[in-house]
């Protein structure tokens, strides 16, 4: 069924066609229309699920983890401060090996208050042991939820996932979306069948105290699964293509990157605008390209190294900032390239925080800057784009 729907609506449909069985969620702008839609689905029996209307995001994640441990497929959605409040439970989820799937509408963190797009909320969860998917379209939002369940629930993966949509740019903007029939999804996504379940007759301890001689091994199991997931995600995206006729380029989508003099690497919706700019500049004879980091965790270091061989210079555009150094994606990209030879120069650009538009004009200027430092070194390592200055206001 093809409908014109928002990213939030696409998220709710993603949970529905994936047959999420237990949903626990708490409202926060701009996530609310996801949970409202799911409440409608459940109230109208269009969706066979229990929706626990919890009293906080912290409890939302706690309830999802316990339900997942009991063998139910779980879903929640949040944003910004809600995600930050969950932080402890995000780590609890990955430690529990509970493959919860969560939508997060990327929103700036306060203070000062802002409800607009910014990726600081999810970037701050980098080390929680969750897979992170940054989407570019409403279709991708829906499809990635299905993909995340399929990979996350595999018995050697058992890892939770965050599906990310930029606030308002996707969450509240309607686009045509193909909503797959639930029977078609059933053929792609088997029922959740974890290796162990917390149920009577299985009298074990789930999450008990572990002494220093073994703790590291439990952590290593999580690390191992994350590493395995990298290739599993590439595979599932290819399978998705066969099954649904769509795919998203695996972990990193390369757009006109081969032999490009300048590439902007970014995550989320800024990539869409950048692709248009690439088309325009290519027509003008400038060799530019875009690499869209779709998956940030597990980190796609192989794709990044591949990009380094294709591109003459790279600007990493982060919609958040890792205080004390550079953009978080930029930090990781530079780290991934350290151990290879012939690295291109890289600059970290910080743009679009708190919902400021990243316009084609801005991106074209950045491409020109990157073209200019190709073969020379980036000079200024970190650059905040178009600061206005608060003095004199």
């Amino acid at each position, binding site marked *: 069924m093809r409908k014109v729907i928002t990213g939030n609506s696409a998220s709710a449909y993603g949970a529905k066609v994936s047959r999420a069985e237990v949903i626990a969620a708490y409202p926060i702008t701009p996530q609310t229309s996801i949970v409202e839609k799911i409440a409608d689905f459940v109230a109208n029996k269009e969706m066979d699920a229990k929706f626990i209307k919890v009293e906080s995001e912290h409890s*939302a994640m706690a309830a999802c983890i316990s339900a997942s441990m009991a063998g139910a497929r779980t879903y929640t959605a949040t944003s910004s401060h809600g995600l930050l409040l969950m932080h402890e439970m995000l780590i609890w989820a990955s430690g529990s090996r509970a493959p919860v799937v969560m939508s997060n509408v990327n929103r700036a963190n306060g203070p000062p208050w802002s409800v607009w797009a910014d990726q600081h909320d999810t970037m701050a969860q980098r080390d929680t042991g969750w897979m992170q998917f940054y989407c570019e379209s409403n279709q991708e939002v829906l499809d990635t939820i299905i993909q995340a369940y399929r990979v996350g629930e595999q018995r050697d993966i058992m890892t939770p996932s965050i599906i990310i949509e930029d606030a308002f740019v996707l969450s509240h903007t309607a686009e045509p979306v193909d909503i797959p029939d639930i029977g078609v999804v059933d053929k792609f996504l088997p029922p959740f069948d974890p290796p162990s379940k917390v149920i009577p007759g299985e009298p074990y301890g789930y999450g008990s105290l572990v002494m220093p001689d073994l703790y590291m091994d439990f952590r290593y199991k999580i690390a191992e699964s994350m590493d395995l997931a990298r290739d599993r995600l590439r595979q599932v995206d290819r399978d998705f293509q066969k099954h649904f006729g769509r795919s998203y380029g695996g972990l990193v989508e390369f757009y006109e990157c081969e032999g490009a003099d300048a590439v902007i690497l970014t995550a989320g919706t800024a990539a869409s605008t950048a692709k248009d700019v690439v088309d325009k500049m290519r027509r003008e004879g400038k060799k530019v390209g875009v690499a869209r980091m779709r998956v940030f965790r597990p980190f796609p270091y192989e794709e990044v190294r591949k990009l380094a061989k294709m591109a003459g210079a790279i600007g990493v555009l982060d919609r958040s900032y890792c205080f004390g150094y550079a953009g978080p994606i930029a930090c990781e990209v530079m780290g991934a390239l350290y151990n290879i030879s012939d690295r291109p120069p890289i600059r970290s650009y910080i743009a679009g925080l708190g919902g400021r538009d990243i316009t084609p004009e801005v991106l074209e200027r950045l491409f020109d800057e990157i073209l200019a430092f190709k073969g020379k070194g980036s000079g200024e390592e970190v650059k905040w784009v178009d600061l206005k200055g608060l003095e004199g206001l």
Partner: protein
Amino acid sequence: MAKATIPEEELMLSGHVGCLGCGATLTMRYVLKALGKNTVISVPACCWAVMPGPYPLRCLEIPMLYNAFETTGASISGLRAAYDMKGRPDINVLGFAGDGGTADIGIQSLSGAVERGDNVFYVMYDNEAYMNTGVQRSSSTPYGAWTTTTPGGTTGDWKRQPKKNMMEIMVAHRIPYAATASVAYPEDMVKKLRKGIDVRGPKFYHIYAPCPTGWRLSPDKTIEISKLATDSCIFPIYEVENGIYTINRKPAKKVPVRDYLRLQGRFRHLGEEELNRIQEAVDWDWKLLLRKEEFMKDM
């Protein structure tokens, strides 16, 4: 001959690492005897997160899910929803938390679960301080007590606030069933838990569970002190069913509260004035409880 009302089956094994005279272990033993094998327990950070022993040891014959300190209410809601979805409404879902995990850090998620009316059991085993971390005060620590964070010092900085009344907080949620119980009266405890199996919705149990280590009490006096708590009316045994109060034990002769306090090192510093003050507070609370029971008799 009197018929034993406590099931013989042991679902808590003897190989735990609790302290001598631990009331929390007795609580677990009786609660599981009452609820039986078709039960799943969720336990936050507390003594009971340690007492089964480190991985791969365990001492319960039912599944035990460890949860984060403040999440017991949310955890049991999640378990309930999952079992109901899977066609297992028969499974008893039990949250089992200490007083800090209930009255302090966990009160929000407990309040959420009770307000939602989720069909779960919740046991607060009350040892009146953060015992697992080394006897720090909680909101359930009684007035006048020494703890490591109410050390008295040169300024008399003992716990200066009254104990938080969790039963009244639960009753204010219009909870269908709430009861106090004590390790001194296992038949009463078991009966109340079994009663809860037939109650749909949240069931809250405030269980008196002495901690000899933290109370500076001789470990052979766990039951004695528990009886004194009820006989002095500082910890009355009662239940509230849909708002109706019933006192299950009324001491024939009220024991002076000082007899209860002076057995415990944590109250050693209290002088006459303080002892009288505590007696007055206990008398007031007991009178209030009797009045509530009386007031609701005809309702």
